[in-house]
């Protein structure tokens, strides 16, 4: 057992921390969010240059041989800064699935340029009826000559407007909600028949509704095996969940720090409100919650590479439960302790609160993952 960071990891932490601190001041972030894309190409280029886009991939895949701990380190700092660049959809989800399931050709064509900062991805899995069930997919892909034709709808697809390729989860066989019979396709974002409705999300990210109207792709668009995508998707989403958990711990650190600072300075009744014991204890509970969130995220990051998918799933779901609980507690408490200021657009606290809230809703909320964990734990 060893829970200490290596020197390289410490350096990575420092540079990610510096990036978030310098490039994501409150005012900077507001400006970035207001740009057309909603993120900056110069920042993305910097990620590539610093090696962050390839750090978690094996050297044979063109990466730098790191893993979930490196992802955790960077995502945590992204959380502190509320960074808007599409690292999660492109690198963790898109890159992760290609590395796991892609052919050598696909890796060369997609992963290598992604690591260089030249390709971005989006992952289209959700449909109106899916809620948090990854297998509840009805967008259909049917054989069409050598290739396939995709028709149907996908919703809340993060980064679809900026992505070069959309990785689409489609039903190629089986009945509704059957895990078997799902296939992943890599679809050119500009493909004919693919239309988008773009919008910002509550937390200033960008997503889209996608409509596929007989979108034709070749046989080489299939990522992994036909009908066998489910385990790939489940693993990728578990990894994304753990990365989100790391981002959330960063958000919690930042929102707790802001609140602590606020209650030390804001005066009412002639004293800083941090002199009131009820706020003191609530602040302690916030820090305890963040500590637990960090612990569970670290544990999940250390277990997510486990060969046993049950270990991996329990670790991811367990961490997501904790993040949901802690994020809600820290977010709601921060708003309350900030008083009226906490519900305005004018302080960072409401922005962290919104991000923490949205993270809970992504890929299954606290309740969903508690049930998933519970079922796995009782089956053991």
């Amino acid at each position, binding site marked *: 057992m060893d829970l200490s960071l290596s020197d390289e990891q410490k350096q990575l932490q420092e540079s990610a921390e510096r990036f978030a601190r310098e490039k994501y001041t409150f005012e900077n972030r507001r400006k970035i969010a207001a740009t057309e894309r909603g993120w900056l190409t110069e920042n993305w280029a910097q990620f590539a240059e610093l090696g962050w886009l390839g750090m978690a991939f094996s050297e044979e895949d063109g990466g730098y041989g790191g893993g979930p701990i490196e992802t955790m380190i960077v995502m945590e700092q992204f959380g502190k800064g509320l960074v808007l660049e599409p690292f999660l959809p492109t690198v963790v989800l898109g890159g992760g699935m290609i590395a796991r399931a892609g052919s050598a050709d696909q890796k060369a064509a997609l992963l290598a340029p992604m690591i260089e900062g030249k390709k971005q991805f989006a992952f289209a899995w*959700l449909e*109106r*009826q*899916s*809620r*948090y*069930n990854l297998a*509840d997919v009805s967008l259909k892909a049917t054989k069409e000559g050598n290739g396939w034709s995709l028709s149907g709808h996908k*919703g*809340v697809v993060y980064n679809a407007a900026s992505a070069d390729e959309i990785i689409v989860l489609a039903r190629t066989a089986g009945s*509704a*909600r059957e895990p078997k019979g799902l296939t992943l396709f890599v679809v050119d974002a500009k493909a004919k028949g693919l239309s988008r*409705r773009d*919008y*910002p*999300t*509550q*937390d200033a990210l960008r*997503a889209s*509704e996608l409509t596929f109207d007989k979108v034709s792709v070749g046989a080489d668009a299939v990522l992994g095996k036909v009908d066998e995508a489910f385990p790939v998707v489940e693993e990728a989403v578990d990894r994304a969940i753990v990365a989100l958990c790391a981002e959330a711990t960063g958000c919690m650190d930042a929102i707790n720090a802001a609140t602590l600072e606020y209650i030390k300075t804001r*005066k*009412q*009744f*002639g004293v800083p409100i941090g002199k*009131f014991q*009820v*706020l003191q204890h609530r602040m302690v509970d916030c820090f305890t919650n963040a500590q637990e969130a960090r612990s569970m995220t670290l544990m999940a990051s250390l277990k997510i590479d486990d060969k046993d998918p049950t270990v991996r799933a329990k670790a991811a779901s367990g961490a997501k439960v904790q993040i949901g609980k802690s994020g809600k507690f820290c977010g*709601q408490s921060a*708003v*309350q302790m900030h*008083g*009226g200021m*906490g*519900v*305005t*657009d*004018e302080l960072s606290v*409401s*922005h962290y*609160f*919104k991000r923490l*809230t*949205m993270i809970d*809703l*992504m890929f299954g*909320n606290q*309740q969903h993952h508690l*049930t998933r964990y519970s079922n796995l734990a009782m089956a053991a």
Partner: protein
Amino acid sequence: MNLTLNPEHQTFADEVRAFVRDNLSPATREKTFSGKHYDRDDHIVWQKALGRKGWLAYTWPKKYGGPGWDVTQRFLFENVLAEEGAPRILPFGPKMVGPVIYTFGTEAQKERFLPGIRSSEVSWCQGYSEPGAGSDLANLRTRAVREGDHYIVNGQKTWTSFAHWGDWIFCLVRTNTEAKPQEGISFLLIDMKTPGVTVRPIIMTDGAHHVNDVFLDNVKVPVENLIGKENEGWTCAKFLLANERLGIAEVPSSKRGVSMLRQIARIEPLDGGTLADDPAFTAQIADIDLQVQALEMSELRVLSTMAQGGAPGPEVSTLKVRGSEIQQRIAELTMEAVGEYAQPYQPGMLFHDTNETPIGPDHAPPAAPRYFNMRKTSIYGGSTEIQKNIVSKMVLGL
């Protein structure tokens, strides 16, 4: 003891329901059930209709032009309005300043101000909080200095709801800087059109504009706009806060919220069925449903005491505390019911009449913004912490 309605009350409830159905604009009603923000007309047109019927100032005694209803009638009126999707009555005139004026004002003041409040011809807003005086209201710094038959008012009010719609503002101002904090305060009515009054919007986290800063820069206010005696405004303030705390529990709209939440659960898809099939979720609805019932019954018990001549004591603070927790929890569960589709931010669907179709289900656009926005309910009108301090001191003697 019984909870049943006698025939007169039953008839009364039917009459109210018929009135709402005949007079509430369908577009306004639709905004209630779709969770859209109201604009000024939604409120004012409806309030004027109530005013014409004599029902806007429904808590007032007959003497001042109110309907003189008993406790049961008030209860029914509020519930029917909420069930039928009426916007809440903006409290600043009929629930706040009106009772202060008829309790502490002169005859001339009553004649001048009460009619416009009863009819909703005149809109009011509340100038209490200041940047340095939120929970600690007695610390307010807005100064009013007597010069002849006017006060010259300087200072800043904040969190002023609907100041951008207001014709008049009632303010707590400091008229004596040497007295103890609570003893040098006066209650002053200010015409918003007076030179020196400036309103600056504060944008909430969901993008909404409800509240404002109000800057008062050498504003000249006639002395006859003072309510009660100079330096005795704290009495009015306390009276008003106690009144405010009771209605602020918002039980009728929370009841509507629970029933809308059940509806949403019956629509939201889950594994081929709906969310209503998920016992873990429906148990959470049941839990909040029961909390609403407990709150309503607690409120009825207070009203029953009042009906027998008792006054609402500081224990109503706990109703306000629970009422805000409940509103927040309903908003939270509603957002969770929507799931991933709560993520798109759709200001067009929140603030404007639009023909766009929403992203996700019809109930999705307001779900997350409402959750964010509802956090304010445990802050305004005296935060939860302040309410508990009050109960601890005044009720428990700690």
